[in-house]
Each structure stands twice: as C-alpha cells, then as structure tokens.
C-alpha cells in the first residue's frame, strides 16, 4: 500500500522552504524601506527579486540585450526615486514595479535607434501581450526558485510528459515519493506565484 504521506529526504532540506532573512521580508516592506531613503539592502533585495524578470521583459520586447540592461538600470533608478508613490490599495508591489518597467520598455522601444526596420517588429506590443509576457516571466522565475528536486519532477511531468511511474523509474525513487514530491512542488510553486502576484 502507499502511504498518504511519504517522507522525501531530497526535498526536506529547510533551505528549500525558507528564504532567509531578507527573503522573509515582503516586497511591500522593502518598498517602504526604499521609500524611507534606504537604497542599500532593501533595494538590492528588490533587485534580486525583480531584475531577472525586468531583464527578460527587455530581451523579449526589445530584442536587444544592451537595451534590456538599460531597462533594468532605468527601472531601478525610477524605483528608487518613486518608491514613495507606492500605495498598497492600488495594487501589489509587483504590479507597481512592472508598471514602471513596461513604461520604460515602451519608451525604449519607441526610441528610433532601438529597432531594426523589420516590419514584423513595428507594431507596439499591446498591453495584453505585455501582461502575458510578464506572467510567463514570473512563472519561469517562480519555477527557477524551487529546489532542483521539485523543479525536476514538474519538468518531467509537463515538459517531458512522463507518467509518474516513468518518473519514478527515471529518477530511481519510489512511486509514492514521486506523488508526494509532485504535490509539494505544486504547493510551493503556487506559493511562489502568489509572492509574485501571479494568478492563472
């Protein structure tokens, strides 16, 4: 018989679940500290949390890594200068930060020197397209934040389309562990997505 709860030593390491001191501070608290004038630890923590996605937004929208770098720099300069404008009642910190980033990205996109005259590239991305891109960047980021054991079981499921029995065989672990680990992985992914204000 299969135990409903299966010990899974590969993912029991608390490092998987605990984000450390800085990681335990919410984005809103970090923004408040930045608004209070601290551009050191809180802003660097926000950089750790958001720079990858902002850079990805730049690479995808602007098709240019130099412009994507510029987007990251400008976004964080703007964030530093305007953190005090954040109001929780108007949306999440993630929304606030990506509102800054997408405006700057569109400014960069409009810069004449930033685009090749490729007709396919001429249409300004719609809000909806940018929303979807930001969501996918967030899902990628959330998935990357999981432990490798959790990420692996999800990737084997949805990317490689393996059944649980095949995953167990591939990884050389009991089927019960695959089931438990899959559930933990989804739960953790859900919580990482919520941290990023992403809902399907």
């Amino acid at each position: 018989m299969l135990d409903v709860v299966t010990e899974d030593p590969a993912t029991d390491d608390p490092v998987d679940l605990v984000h450390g001191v800085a990681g335990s501070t919410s984005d809103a608290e970090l923004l408040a500290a930045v608004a209070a004038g601290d551009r050191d630890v809180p802003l660097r923590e926000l950089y750790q949390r958001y720079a990858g996605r902002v850079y990805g937004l730049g690479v995808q929208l602007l098709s240019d890594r130099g412009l994507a770098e510029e987007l990251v720099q400008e976004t964080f300069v703007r964030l530093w200068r305007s953190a005090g404008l954040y109001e929780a009642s108007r949306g999440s910190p993630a929304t606030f930060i990506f509102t800054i980033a997408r405006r700057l990205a569109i400014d960069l996109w409009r810069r004449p020197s930033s685009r090749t005259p490729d007709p396919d590239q001429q249409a300004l991305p719609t809000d909806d397209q940018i929303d979807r891109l930001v969501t996918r960047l967030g899902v990628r980021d959330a998935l990357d934040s999981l432990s490798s054991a959790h990420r692996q079981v999800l990737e084997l499921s949805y990317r490689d389309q393996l059944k649980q029995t095949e995953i167990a065989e591939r990884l050389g672990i009991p089927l019960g562990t695959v089931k438990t680990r899959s559930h933990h992985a989804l739960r953790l992914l859900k919580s990482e997505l919520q941290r990023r204000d992403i809902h399907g």
Partner: protein
Amino acid sequence: MAELPPRREAHREPHPDVAGYLLGTLQDDEARAFLDHLDGCEACQRELDELADLPQLLTDLLTDGPNTWSLPAGLEERTFDALAAVAPREPTRSETGHASGPSNITAITPAPERPRERTRGRRRPAGLLIAAAAAAAVVIAGVATLSVLRTSNPAPLASIRLVSADGGPAEGNATVRTTDAGLTIDMTATGLAPAPAGKIYTCWLVADDDTLAHPDRVSVGSFVVRGPTVHVHWTTAADLDRFPHLGVTVEPDNGNPSHQGPKILNGVPRPR
C-alpha cells in the same frame, strides 16, 4: 497503486494523486479511482481548485514561454553605480500636496499638518519635519559646524564623526559633498540597535537656534537598521549656513514630522 481514503470521509493529508491528476501523470486506473474519490471528497475538491491554475501556466510556459537567460555579469553593480549618481527622490504622493522643507528625503509618513513655509530650497515637498511641536529635547551636543568647512574643492565638504549621545555603542561618520543635485550626505553607522517597533531613525540638520520650545531643524532622511552596519545616502537642498549641525534621533513612525524622539548620535567635526 494507492489505497484510496474512503469516500466521503474527511482526510487531513492531501490525497496522493491530486498533483498527478492535475499534471496528467497518473495511469488510467489511478485517474479513474481518483475521480471516484473526488466525487465525494470536499477536501480534495478544494485542493484541486486551489491548484487548478497551475497546469495551464506551466503549459503556457512550455509552449510560448520566454527563453531562459542569466543576468549579465556586473549589471547589478552598474545599476547601483547609476543609482548612486541619481540622488533626489520624487516627492511621495503624500508630500506632493503641501510643500515646504528643503530636504528631498523626508519621513516615511507625511506631515499631518502643514509645515512652516520655507522660502529657500530647490524643492519644497512637505514633510519636513520642521517641527511645529517638538515633544522632546533636541539638543545636539558636540556640533559639527559644517558651514565653516565649506570649500570649492570637489572633495568632501565635511567629514563628521558621529558619537553616541546616550552612552551606547553606536558610532559612525558622515561625509557631506556638494553635487549638482544639492548636498549629499553619506552616513555609515555601526552599533545601532534596530529601532523599536513603531520607531524609525531620523537624521537631522539643525539650526543654531533650535531649542526644545522652538525647534528649527530639517530632516535629511529616515532609515531602518537591518544589520550591524548601516550605510545611507541622502541628498538634501538644505542650506548648511542655516542648518549647520547634524544629529540622529529615533522617532515615532507615526506620520508626525515633528522631532519627538531621543537623540542617538551627535555630529562632531573631524579634525582636518
């Protein structure tokens, strides 16, 4: 195959096949058995509902997702170098309505009352902390008279040693420079305990005539202590001739811009 919890009987632990069902990784017989169980189990229905958006998000990522890339080496440092060169902050939403006070960096929370008007200063967002009603003593003991150190030299205008005002272990130093954006103050302090709940550290520039009854000072900025060493960088348009002394207090984080709290650090001019 899993021995399923009986139907219609609550179970505390999640059913082992919730995830497999969502991800489509169960064998057919497992999936059928799980569906039978699900039909009568509210706990599993709730769990499925909570996780139901994940398969589509993962599929979108698979079919249409962004490629992976890593952030370029050095981008973080370049970004923070760029930041260091951009000092003034935009006034906070709450600061934009009323205005006075020369500092760009003000308290986290806005002034409930309209502060005294100032005629000097590049920008005058409110906030500042020109205390209409100071509640506690505010004497800066070992003062650094910044104005006398003024020079046209681009080197630091003044270097100020910060000494504990209450006999505690806190100490630090502050460097004042002139830039196009105004004065910058870089302060490093050690030995400061995290402010008690509801309190926040505030750095002040203080006028000669500042007294308990008639405070005359501007806040340079507030800060939070999160580690053994604090480094803060501020820009202020405050006039050093008028506010020549520097000090740090701990203030209630209550939106009142007045100086109320005890003094923690005093500025002492460093011998040059």
